[in-house]
C-alpha cells in the first residue's frame, strides 16, 4: 500500500511537466522557475522540520511521563532542540527571500 502511494504521488508530480515546455522569458532561460522552486523548497523544509520537531516533542513528553521529577531539564533540552530544528526551516525561508530579490 505504501509503495502504491509513493508511486501515485510521483506520477501526480510528473503531471506538472508541461511547465518545462514554456518558452523562456525575454530575460533568459532559468529565471522564470526560480520562484516556484524556492516555494517548493520551503514546503519540503517545513514538512521535514515538522517531522523532526514532532519526534523531539514525542520523546520529550514520554521522558517527562516516565520521570516527572526530571521534567525541568527535559523541558530545557526540548526547547533547545526545537529552536535548533526550527532554525533549519528558517534558513530555507531566507533563501526564498534571496530568490525573490534576484
Amino acid at each position: 500500500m505504501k509503495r502504491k502511494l509513493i508511486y501515485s504521488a510521483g506520477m501526480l508530480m510528473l503531471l506538472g511537466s508541461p511547465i518545462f515546455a514554456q518558452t523562456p522569458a525575454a530575460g533568459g532561460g532559468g529565471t522564470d522557475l526560480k520562484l516556484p522552486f524556492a516555494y517548493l523548497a520551503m514546503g519540503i523544509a517545513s514538512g521535514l522540520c515538522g517531522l523532526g520537531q514532532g519526534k523531539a516533542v514525542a520523546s520529550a513528553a514520554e521522558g517527562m511521563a516516565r520521570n516527572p521529577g526530571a521534567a525541568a531539564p527535559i523541558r530545557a533540552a526540548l526547547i533547545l532542540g526545537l529552536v535548533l530544528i526550527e532554525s533549519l526551516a528558517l534558513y530555507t525561508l531566507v533563501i526564498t527571500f534571496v530568490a525573490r530579490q534576484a
Partner: protein
Amino acid sequence: MQAESEIWTTALFNRFLAGPLDTFLNAVGHPAADPAHPWQNWITVEILVVALILVVFALLRSKLSVEHPGNFQLAFEGIYKFISGQASESIDHHADRYVPFFGSVFIFILFMNLIGIIPGLESPTMTPAVPLAFAAAVFLYYHWMGLREQGAGKYLAHFAGPVWWLAWLMLPIELISHFARPLSLTIRLYANMFAGERVTITFLTLTYFLLPAVFMGLHVFVAFLQAFIFMLLAMIYVGGAVAHEH
C-alpha cells in the same frame, strides 16, 4: 529587503542630526546612499532601546534595598538568578565571570525584539545587520575568553581534536563549524523576527483585524524564546571554549 519607509524616530533623527552622521560616514569611507536621510530605522530604534534600558536600570539602581526589596528589584533578582543558574549549568568553572556579558546580550536582544510590537516602532533585529553584530560579538567574546583561560597554544591545539593523527581531518571540520556558529546565530534571530512581522502582515491582508493578533502573540513568545536561545548558545560556546579537559 525592500526599502523600508521611515518611522517617526528615524524622521526625527534625519531632521536634526543628518549632518553629523553624514560627516562621520564620509570620514569612515561609507557615504550614505541618500545624504538627506542617512539615519536608518534600525539604528535609531537601537539608540532608543539603549536609552530605555539605561532609564530602567538607573531606576532600579536608585531603588535597591536589602531590607525592603520592592517588586521591581525582586523581578530583576529573578532574572539574574535565571541567567546565572543557566550559566553555571553550561560552564564548569567561574561561570559568574561571564554572566555580565550574557545578561547584557539577553536584555538587549529581548528589549529590541519586543519593541517592534509597539505600533510605530520597528525591531532593529529585523535588519540582518543587527543580529550579525551580536553574533560577531559573541564569536569574538568566546574565542577571547578561551584564549585568556587556556593560553594561546593550548587553545589553538584543541582545534586539532583528541589525537594528533586525526588533526588533518579535525582542523577543517572544526574551522567550518566554528565559522558556521555566527552565521547560524545571525540567521536564526533575523529570520525569526523578520518572518514574525511578515506573517502578521500577510494574515492582515487575508483576514479580519483580530485574527492576525494571534500571530502577534506567537511573535511575542518567539521574541522571548529567541533572545533566550541566543544567550544559551553563547553560554554553550563559551563553555566549550573554556572547558579544561580532564
